[in-house]
């Protein structure tokens, strides 16, 4: 390992430390907020996707030559991004992007659910960010909804001939907004008085908007930047992943 490599490895965490050095509060539903039956329901919804991710891990490892470092890098990125508080001047509040749209483009949606689950467990255990009882709900909103919506729009955009950068931007944007839309639904369905679920869903979603509309745009640019970096630096990674959708 030469001196330059050591220097790069040492410098890499600096932005992560600066950006994540503070308690972060965003879409993760905290411990005890959801009533037990709802928490159990969201675990039941999340588990098949996690199992799918585990099965996909073996396939990915078999088929993609640099699967391990790619999954490791994407997993670390999801962990850091999803506990990185970003101040949004237009709203005067902080929230975090999710990174799941970006992850889904590189490693697929099922594996993204898996890495999101690992990130969420660590955050719930050691950072008081999210909760163990609400883990299922958080996996569904950030992992499942974020990954599948981002990946879905990316593939769709590729098929209809949208340029790669626009498809990537949409992947980031839609995954972020879908995550917060599902969080709004989870809160509304569990906490609203009978008959007012729709009303509460609208109220929660509108409350998220001033922060999440700009953050979704941020996440879109993040996706484009990361993809462009890989495309310029190591295009064979994208070729091994099927050349990307676009």
């Amino acid at each position, binding site marked *: 390992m030469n001196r330059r*490599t050591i220097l*790069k*490895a*040492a410098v*890499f*965490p600096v*932005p*992560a*430390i600066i*950006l*994540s*050095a*503070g*308690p*972060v*509060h*965003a*879409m993760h539903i*905290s*411990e*005890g*907020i959801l009533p037990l039956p709802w928490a159990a329901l969201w675990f039941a919804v999340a588990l098949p996707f996690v199992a799918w991710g585990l099965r996909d891990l073996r396939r990915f490892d078999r088929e993609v030559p640099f699967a*391990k*470092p*790619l999954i*490791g*890098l994407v*997993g*670390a990125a999801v*962990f*850091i991004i999803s*506990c990185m*508080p*970003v*101040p*949004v*001047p237009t709203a005067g*509040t*902080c*929230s975090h992007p999710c990174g799941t749209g970006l992850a889904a483009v590189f490693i697929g949606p099922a594996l993204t659910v898996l890495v999101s689950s690992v990130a969420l467990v660590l955050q*719930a*255990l*050691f*950072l*008081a960010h999210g*909760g163990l*009882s609400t883990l299922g709900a958080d996996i569904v909103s950030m992992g499942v909804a974020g990954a599948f919506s981002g990946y879905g729009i990316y593939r769709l955009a590729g098929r209809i001939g949208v340029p790669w*950068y626009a498809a990537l931007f949409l992947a980031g944007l839609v995954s972020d907004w879908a995550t917060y839309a599902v*969080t709004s639904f989870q*809160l509304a369905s*569990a906490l*609203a008085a009978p008959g007012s679920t729709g009303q*509460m869903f609208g109220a*929660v979603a509108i*409350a*998220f908007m001033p*922060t999440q509309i700009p953050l979704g745009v941020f996440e879109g*640019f993040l996706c484009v930047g990361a993809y*462009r970096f890989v495309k310029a630096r*190591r295009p064979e990674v994208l070729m091994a992943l099927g050349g990307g959708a676009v």
Partner: protein
Amino acid sequence: MRKIMRVFAAVIVFSLLAAGASADEEKWAGVDEVVVKKIAREANRPGAEPLIPLEGDAALFAFLIAGATGGFVGGYYYRELFSRKRKE
């Protein structure tokens, strides 16, 4: 594209500076405080203590360690994926 990235970087730097300047005014609450927990409190579900409650600067410490660990893991795999190629 380079121009867009510059504007984007400027927005991030501005946001961070603005956050720092406003720290004394107790601004920049997280959306979980102003949205999720507010809704939960109104619905009489104020939530429970996390498994490991982090008070005061312990939270800063935990997030600092998490950021450093995540950064080192990312750096390690980044080197595997990108730097090794240049040597070959």
